[in-house]
């Protein structure tokens, strides 16, 4: 947006981010709670929400469902590449803007790779319904990394030469050591990170399998972090493999076991994509972009989110046979003895 020319901080400024962490209780304590409680305690209207995962891998889908149920106002979404998580949040804004509203999006990519484009993103952007700021994947990862390092910025080659330099808050300086141009990216310190991982202990030590995406950096950059996981495991098990821990407990505020919490996306070692469900969701949105009625999308939200008590009820609808098939597909990707 034009205003990106003038520097401002979304989420927390570096000094505010520091202060938030200094005053926070970082002790090693039981952080298990319900998803309802976590979303209600840690996500506020106006917050900058950092979304973990990558495209449709380990996206915090269960958390977005609960956010939609509870409603949110004027939030900023920050992510590199994402698929269903912003789809769910922004789709809710399409049908109930009074209940769910997104003010701003800082992103690199919003689509679904093999499962196509996001009609939700097109709908919002082409109607000017949200302000947004384009970055690249590395730009966003590096901005979270700067936030996680307690730095106001990080240098990068990434946006040089292109229009991202013009439409974002990037500053290009002459390197004081080489004289060549180098881009400085402002840190991102979200108010809250929402993540889904494979395993966590009750203190919040997170074990991630396959890509870490930028989850560790987002967690450490944010003032608060909500983590859902496939398995809550004992601290003793986690501490016997401390090098597998990608996010240390002081960076985590809420731990909730939600099996299939990234579904219909994939979660390494647990389940592969349910592409049909992703496409089905899009098939409800695409006609709306062309002027069709909102009702089918409303019905989807009613059936899958507003009309159920929690994410477990949503998952239940897929039936065991389909869930087992998606688990079997992942077992093929990543063979392991039980």
């Amino acid at each position, binding site marked *: *947006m*034009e205003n990106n020319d003038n520097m401002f901080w979304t989420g927390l400024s570096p000094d505010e981010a520091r202060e938030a962490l200094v005053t926070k209780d970082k002790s090693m304590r039981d952080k298990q709670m319900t998803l309802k409680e976590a979303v209600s305690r840690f996500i506020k209207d106006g917050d900058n929400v950092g979304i973990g995962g*990558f*495209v*449709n*891998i380990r996206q915090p889908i269960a958390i977005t469902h609960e956010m939609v149920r509870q409603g949110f106002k004027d939030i900023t979404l920050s992510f*590199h*590449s994402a698929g269903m998580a912003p789809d769910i949040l922004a789709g809710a804004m399409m049908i109930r803007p009074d209940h769910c509203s997104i003010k701003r999006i800082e*992103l*690199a*990519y*919003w*689509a679904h*790779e*093999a499962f196509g484009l996001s009609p939700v993103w*097109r709908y919002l*952007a*082409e*109607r*000017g319904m949200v*302000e*947004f700021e*384009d970055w*690249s*994947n*590395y*730009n966003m*990862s*590096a901005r979270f*990394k700067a936030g996680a390092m307690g730095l106001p910025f990080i240098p*990068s*080659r*990434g*946006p*040089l*030469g*292109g*229009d*991202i330099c013009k*439409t974002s808050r990037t500053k290009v300086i002459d*390197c004081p050591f080489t004289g*060549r*141009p*180098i*881009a400085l990216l402002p840190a991102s310190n979200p108010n809250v990170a929402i993540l889904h991982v494979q395993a966590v202990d009750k203190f919040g030590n997170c074990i991630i399998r*396959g*890509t*870490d*995406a*930028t989850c*560790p*950096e987002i967690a450490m950059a944010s003032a608060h972090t909500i983590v859902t996981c496939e398995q809550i495991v004992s601290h003793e098990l986690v501490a016997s493999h401390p090098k597998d821990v990608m996010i240390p407990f002081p960076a985590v505020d809420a731990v909730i076991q939600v099996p299939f919490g990234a579904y219909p996306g*994939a979660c*390494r*070692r647990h389940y592969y*994509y349910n*592409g049909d469900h992703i496409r089905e969701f899009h098939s409800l949105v695409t006609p709306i972009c062309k002027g069709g009625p909102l009702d089918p999308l409303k019905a989807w939200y009613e059936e899958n989110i507003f009309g159920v008590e929690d994410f477990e009820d949503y998952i239940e609808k897929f039936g065991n046979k389909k869930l087992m098939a998606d688990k079997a597909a*992942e077992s*093929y*990707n990543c063979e392991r003895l039980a």
Partner: protein
Amino acid sequence: MTASAVSNNMKVSTDYTAQEIIVVAGAKVLEDKKIVFVGTGLPMVASLLAKLTNAPGLIPVFEAGAVGPPLKRGLPLSVGDSKTFTGASYVKGLNAAFELTQRGFADFGFIGGAEVDMFGNLNSTMIGDFPAGYQKPKVRLPGSGGASDMAASCERTILIVPHDKKKFNAKLNYITSPGHLDGSPNARYNAGMQGKGPYRLISTKGIFDFEEKSKRMRILFTFPGETIESIQAATGFELLISPNVSEFPAPTEEEVRMIREDIDPTGVFVKRIAK
């Protein structure tokens, strides 16, 4: 496979699709024992084909963090797919993958775009009035993903753009992934970028390089059925013509079979034309 089946398979395919020749061309542009940073979609298919044919020692890197996976579990649906991690030599996250690239570990970057200009700059952000209409574009595209980073830091980039006069434009709506910029001498270096920039462009009509001095797009190979004239006619700017321009051979039956049966049997990225 019998000897006669082998010789059959070396025969030229008569029913290959536009996407299939892109994949075959992409595979052949890749070099054995080099590191390729693979973008999503057709670059993944082409890299798999290269590993099975001319470049068995090719080392794929995916931006979500996998380095050197054997890809024995088939075509990934995403550059962060579980299939990219099994058997890999190194698995971290996005920062690590892009840091390696910025450092100089990626010999090739393999990226797509919705729009390209004569200097190999790519747009995958928006169609519309820029900058005034940036916040309300006519068509909103997915955005850079990792393409801008690959463009800025891979040593050489291979671009894939479907050939179409609206997509081969004199001026882009938005420069997402910089190529040779304005083509001026040392433009990339002076802008602070790394690497030599666009090396080849593969379209649905041919393979192009970028002339050394002017950095302008140049026809290197025409695909079967295309001529220099037919390609120029479908291009929104003047193309240069290589002194050695020649016809790129049609895919063999075996190459097409590998794409259809071994690599992308369900047509995830290489779409089947309805019969």
